[in-house]
């Protein structure tokens, strides 16, 4: 009984401390999540008063979801997102781990390199994307000039070619974010006791074996964290495509055939969702968000399972 009194007092104090956070959380995160669900079953009629579009929305049941699931562009945007994740997640893990291993050596100027590698992380993605557009521009951009020195010619430039546009955007984002992965891996590697490596060396392990059988298993939590955050980033990706997709063809990048339709080669789900939102189809956009959330939950569930079985 006495314990409960203490806990009750602590609870009152705790919720007082939490009140500001929870208020903002409920208003701008909790309520929106539920409201999103609510309007995902509604749609605004064409005759809607656009100054009161949410008030004039009508219940349509699952129509928004059905329309999306029957929309080729929706599936295409998911496919793009999948490819985007496939490009960005493994390469950012490899790059982050590689940099962390290199910088774990006792080198002079180690802090300098850490700073330089982390720097792009603090920069505006939109601005960095725009700079890369300039560097990647066909015929005149730095990358294209270097590629043509190597006698590699890509029609339309790397961003204007439907086959290279999406991976190129992915690599730019990976390069920009490499420092973050580096820091996470670095802190994980520094927690591995030196004695483990020494023991391996005595047993005659090669550098590759040490990486494969000691480092990678011990930084697995970081790898899984990066897979989950990478999935989230792929599902949320918008700014990078908005900044870098070839404006010549609108925001979806160069066209590619998918079924009978021409679709943008860089039309990621985040971008497609934005375009739906911009058209004022808020109900459909909300339904889109919930479908994305379901995918995100499935993926993170698979990841969690993966983590558990490996442990």
């Amino acid at each position, binding site marked *: 009984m006495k314990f409960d009194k203490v806990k009750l007092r*602590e609870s009152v104090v705790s919720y007082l401390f939490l009140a500001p956070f*929870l208020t903002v959380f409920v208003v701008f995160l909790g309520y929106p999540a539920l409201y999103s669900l609510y309007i995902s079953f509604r749609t605004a009629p064409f005759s809607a008063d656009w100054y009161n579009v949410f008030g004039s929305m009508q219940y349509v049941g699952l129509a928004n979801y059905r329309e999306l699931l029957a929309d080729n562009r929706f599936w295409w945007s998911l496919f793009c997102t999948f490819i985007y994740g496939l490009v960005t997640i493994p390469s950012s893990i490899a790059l982050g781990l590689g940099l962390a291993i290199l910088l774990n050596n006792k080198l002079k100027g180690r802090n300098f390199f850490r700073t330089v590698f982390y720097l*792009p992380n603090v920069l505006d993605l939109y601005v960095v994307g725009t700079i890369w557009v300039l560097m990647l521009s066909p015929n*005149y951009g730095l990358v294209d000039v270097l590629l043509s020195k190597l006698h590699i010619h890509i029609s339309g430039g790397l961003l204007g070619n439907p086959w290279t546009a999406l991976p190129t955007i992915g690599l730019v984002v990976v390069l920009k974010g490499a420092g973050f992965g580096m820091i996470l891996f670095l802190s994980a590697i520094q927690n591995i006791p030196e004695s483990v490596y020494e023991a391996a060396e005595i047993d005659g392990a090669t550098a590759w074996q040490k990486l494969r059988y000691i480092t990678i298993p011990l930084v697995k939590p970081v790898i899984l964290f990066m897979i989950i955050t990478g999935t989230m980033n792929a599902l949320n990706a918008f700014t990078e495509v908005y900044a870098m997709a070839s404006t010549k063809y609108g925001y979806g990048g160069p066209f590619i055939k998918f079924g009978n339709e021409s679709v943008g080669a860089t039309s990621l789900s*985040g971008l497609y969702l*934005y375009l739906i939102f911009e058209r004022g189809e808020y109900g459909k956009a*909300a339904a889109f968000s919930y479908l994305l959330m379901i995918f995100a939950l499935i993926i993170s569930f698979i990841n969690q399972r993966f983590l558990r079985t490996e442990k």
Partner: protein
Amino acid sequence: MRSLKDFFVYILLSVGAMLSILPIIWMLVIACKQQGQALRFEFLPSTIGISQPYSIKVGGKYNTVIFEYVNEDAQTVFVKAEFAGDKEVEMLSEGQGIFTARFEGITAGQYRYSFLVDGEEVVEGNGLIKVEGEYSYNHPPRNGTTATESSITFRFRSSRSPVKAILSTGQQIDLAGPDAAGYFTAQLNDLPAGDYSYRFEYARSWTEGLAELYTYKNFVAVLFNKDFPFLKFFLNSLIVATLAAIFTVALCTAGGYVFAKKNFYGKEVLFYILLATMLVPGLIFMVPQFVIVTKLGWINTYAGMFVPHIANVFGLYLLRQYMETIPDSLFEAARIDGATEWQQFSVIAVPLSMPIMVTLFLLVFVGQWSNFLWQYITNTPDSPLRTLPVGLALFKGQYDIRWEQMMAGACFSVIPITILFLLAQRFFIEGMTSGGVKE
């Protein structure tokens, strides 16, 4: 063996470091380039200047006068010539401050002329132009090349030799000179009648070459652009990012403290609900957040731009992880000494968590500084509160892309944050990997 390995590691790291900051360097270089030079792959100034191409007719029927006026600061230039009835004729801008106007069918003779530069009359030399013979072309005052029935007499003013004229047919001729007025001349004979174009190649100093490629004026143009008040955008970004960072840190510190150090009803459930929202794609909140912000009348306000993001679950998690390392004994001792709950928080927890609070402040500041989509939709296109990324995006959409000015604009976004990062990089890098507080 060891030094060889280190050597390769250094090479790898240096290449990576170059690649990592390449966009910043590229941005700076392009921002300093002259208008129209952004997409030219030319970076080293050349000591050989090449003039723009001129056209000329050999064996033509009419006397033609081509006026050329060079002034980089001029906006509009008119020419007034006696043979054109002293009417003011607007000259065509050919970029880089060169203005031209062309008159045909002029009888030989001597005529008065003057320029009107942004409304101000400018008379060059004695203000007279001599139109000779039936076939002459005149380019006063810099370039007085003339043609006859079968020849061209090249004339070009330059301070250095050599000067060379290159004809569209591939013929080249070295110009002799300079004469007293500083002109180089040469005559090319036995040309078949027809249209030709030619350009001059002339020696110039390295600084002249540099000035042709680079300028500081893009920065001036961006800073004092009437349609895109970059200084204002900059200030808006600063205000929004600072407010967001202060409020986020305050909320997350208070929240993180109780999750780390208090035992209360619903703690576990609440924590998992909060963490679960991190898994949800952020776009899901966007539509309703937009509705709420609209209903609150927060469109085009600072509050609308940052308040929806200050309940930062990642920040809360970061603070909780850090505060858990503060020993409980410190709080117990304080309690025995009669410290209130608020005192325990403000005198023990907050000062000891300063490093992680600074880290979170910086992370949020940086995130808000470059938050594009949300600030884009909560501001109408004419809003005075637009932030830098939004301003930059509109800058891109509004005109034909002026890359040089756009990169100059980008510098104003990137450089402050880079400086902030370099000053506080210890907190960025160590904050996230910190081992917490030692007793």
